[in-house]
């Protein structure tokens, strides 16, 4: 196999591979992590029969949980942790659209202090003034950043926030007697797929606007789509291409004139802090993913926060409760919103994430936020400049339009010459500890690479990334076998993708897996 000399910037890397089974497969009947002692007689007498404390419908005769000893559990999760990569290990530049930035560890520590971690969501608000004040103050800061008038932190992520927006849209039109008539939601092809999926789940017909030759939403197609059936326009801007639609206010005006509402997907607002706001662009509501732009970790689909903000006219539609400040200066819960859509998540959502974002914003201040946007855009422009030196990397659409905080590149020239797609490049980048995530849906741009550096990486990080990508492209020409069989030094090698698009073959949980195996028998 031909060896290609590496640029000094290209890292030597090898990831652990433990071939670790799924935890359910490790289960041994009767094995225990902890044997719980019987309660003392006084306690038993005071509590009574435990089974009677648990509602009938929640009682189970059999628990389908793995039975494993403590050591094996610890080993299992340590091995899994070695088999992952993440923002703390490498610059996550290849996670375009995800805005994976540095999340200060000190803020994690803050969220874990016993005073917060030990709280119960049902405890008296008088005893929870600290965290309520933080939620209240974060709301005020979000208002300043967006230009909107009230925020709820209940949604646990971006898709749930989009779902909340769609619920508000439905309630708004219901109260105006137009719910039946307005059954369409318009979005754009380059907005996040959840901007279509969440309103679809609320029963709306979805209309996609394709891009024009510049890569921006086609205004004429949009105008033809808007009408008396329009319930709302749900859109990201900049879109996943990194392009900002400068005519967005004309789009939102068309929707308002037709009686619809405008919803802004600002999951990623990283390039816009201090530059542009939802209100001035004509939006009635927006949401920010605190776990993207606002310095809180993503948590692997775990608790995040899609902070949703609305204009004053829509405040009463927000999920309850909201945190408000009473005349006496106390922070209290306002459950009394006239048109509330109810709850989208239990209690207050994820206050720990709000706390982390509050700490992050306070450490930067208003000028610091503006600096974040500038550095994120500068890093993106620098990486773009470095990458476009390679003749196999292209900027699709109008190359003179500035990409804001991320870029969707195309390597179609490389594919034409070598037969390797961006998927093959992603596989090989794993051998250098670097991701290129496949967040390019729909594949409008051929052979896409979506890269978003954020403000976090240093110039050295960006240079390493660019040098590694160039090295892999060179390998495509000089050592095709190496690319075809990559990754070689990653935990998992190539995956058979047959039926990946067939829901019948998906097993998101062990329970589903067992059921499907049974069905097959």
């Amino acid at each position, binding site marked *: 196999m031909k060896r290609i000399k590496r640029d000094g910037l290209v890292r030597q890397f090898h990831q652990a591979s433990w071939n670790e089974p799924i935890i359910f497969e490790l289960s041994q009947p009767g094995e225990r992590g902890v044997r719980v002692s019987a309660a003392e007689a006084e306690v038993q007498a005071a509590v009574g029969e435990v089974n009677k404390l648990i509602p009938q419908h929640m009682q189970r005769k059999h628990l389908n949980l793995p039975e494993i000893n403590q050591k094996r559990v610890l080993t299992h999760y340590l091995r899994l942790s070695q088999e992952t990569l993440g923002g703390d290990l490498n610059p996550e530049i290849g996670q375009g659209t995800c805005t994976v930035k540095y999340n200060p560890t000190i803020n994690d520590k803050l969220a874990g202090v016993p005073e917060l971690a030990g709280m119960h969501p049902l405890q008296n608000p008088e005893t929870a003034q600290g965290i309520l004040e933080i939620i209240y103050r974060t709301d005020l800061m979000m208002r300043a950043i967006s230009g909107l008038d009230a925020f709820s932190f209940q949604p646990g992520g971006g898709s749930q926030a989009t779902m909340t927006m769609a619920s508000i849209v439905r309630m708004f039109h219901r109260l105006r007697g137009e719910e039946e008539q307005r059954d369409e939601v318009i979005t754009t*092809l380059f907005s996040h*797929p959840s901007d*279509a999926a969440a309103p*679809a789940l609320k029963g*709306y*017909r*979805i*209309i*996609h*606007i*394709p*891009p*024009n*030759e510049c890569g921006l939403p*086609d205004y*004429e*197609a*949009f105008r*033809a*789509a808007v009408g008396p059936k329009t319930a709302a326009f749900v859109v990201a801007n900049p879109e996943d291409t990194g392009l900002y639609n400068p005519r967005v206010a004309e789009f939102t005006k068309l929707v308002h004139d037709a009686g619809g509402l405008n919803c802004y997907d600002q999951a990623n607002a990283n390039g816009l802090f201090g530059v542009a706001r939802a209100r001035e662009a004509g939006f009635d509501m927006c949401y920010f993913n605190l776990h993207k732009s606002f310095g809180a970790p993503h948590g692997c689909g775990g608790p995040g926060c899609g902070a949703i903000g609305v204009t004053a006219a829509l405040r009463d539609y927000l999920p309850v409760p909201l945190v408000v400040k009473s005349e006496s200066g106390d922070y209290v819960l306002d459950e009394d919103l006239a048109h509330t859509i109810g709850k989208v998540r239990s209690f207050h959502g994820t206050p720990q994430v709000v706390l982390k974002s509050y700490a992050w914003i306070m450490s930067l201040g208003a000028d610091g936020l503006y600096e974040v946007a500038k550095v994120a855009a500068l890093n993106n422009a620098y990486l773009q400049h470095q990458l476009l030196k390679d003749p196999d990397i292209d900027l699709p659409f109008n190359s003179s339009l500035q990409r804001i905080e991320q870029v969707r590149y195309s390597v*179609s020239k490389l*594919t*034409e*010459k*070598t*037969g*390797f*797609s*961006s*998927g*093959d490049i992603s596989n090989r980048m794993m051998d250098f500890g670097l991701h290129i995530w496949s967040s390019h*849906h*729909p*594949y*409008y741009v*051929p*052979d896409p690479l979506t890269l978003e550096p954020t403000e976090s990486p240093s110039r050295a990080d960006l240079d390493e990334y660019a040098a590694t990508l160039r090295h892999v492209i060179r390998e495509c020409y000089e050592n*095709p076998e190496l690319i*075809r069989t990559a990754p070689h030094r990653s935990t998992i090698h190539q995956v*058979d*993708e*047959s*039926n990946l*698009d*067939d*829901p019948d073959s998906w097993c998101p949980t062990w329970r589903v897996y067992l059921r499907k195996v049974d069905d097959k028998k």
Partner: protein
Amino acid sequence: MRKLGLIINPIAGMGGQVGLKGTDGTEILKQAISLGAIPSATQKAERCLRLLVLESDICWLTAEGAMGEDLLRTFGQSPHILYPIDRKETTAADTQRTAELMKDAGVELILFAGGDGTARNIVAVVGTDVPVIGIPAGVKICSPVFGKTPEATGQLLNRWLKRTEPQTILREVLDLDEALVRQDRIETDLFGYLRVPAEPDYVQNRKAPTPLSERDSQMAIALDILDELPKDYLCIVGPGSTTSALLQMLGLPMTLMGVDVIKNGELIAKDCAEADLLRLLETNPAWLVLTPTGGQGYLLGRGNQQISAKVLKRLTVADLKIVATQEKLISLESRPLLIDTGDADVDNYYSGYYRAKTGYHNEMMVKVKGPLNR
């Protein structure tokens, strides 16, 4: 042993080298050779095979000499010769006969090097019975049945052959009328459907790996139409795999290349001619369900001429329902869908923005306009 077929159309691409827009017919071939054209299809097939991992459990079936045998031998293979050729020059009939024999021999896939004309020859005898993939080597590559490049075709096959459950999708075989192209008129027509490997990254005309498989998307579109179709309306179903999902959903026999009519869930006319449609429209309101062809994106006037200007005059813009998977529309790169009924008034009337159905309650705005050449 896994059996794979290889057909090289040695003359493919020769007309293009000397500006002849194609190599269909022996006269044009002679002209091309006299102008100095040299065979290049074998070279392109060689570029593909060079990247192909030639596992030892693969048995190649091919035709004698330049149609496959020679190249396979240079790669150290010992192909099984299905079809002997004792002439120097090969014809379309040779391609057809070889493909037919491959089908009978039960090959897993036919790999061919050629252009749209070669694909047309193969689809005529193979239909959708055998998976087929083309190495782009011809002058005309309009049909989305080719890898993007010879190298990409090789990588595509590497992936596909490794799959435990390799999937295929139906793709149109389109061909230009070479005589018209030489007069600078671009006219494609639909000649059938081939089953090509479903490896979205590599096929001609970029494809979008959608969360749903193409089949599921087509079924979702069919459900949307069937849910919305008013009672007692005719549903005139144009050619194509997306439209035919409607009939499949109802458990009715389908005509992939023809026009069928359903009403209240029953098939009332099959493979209709213009006169059949005109007669049915005399007494019934109707929806017309059409899907664009790949390549140029023709909605009307190519492969569905029975839906004539006369038929269209009996319908309105509101009756026209465009259906297409998002992947298909994306492959057209935001270009307008084309109509060419031969009647400028009808073309103009049906021009404008439409909502193409791309899934259940899912639509994409598309622009429809008259023919490019007018």
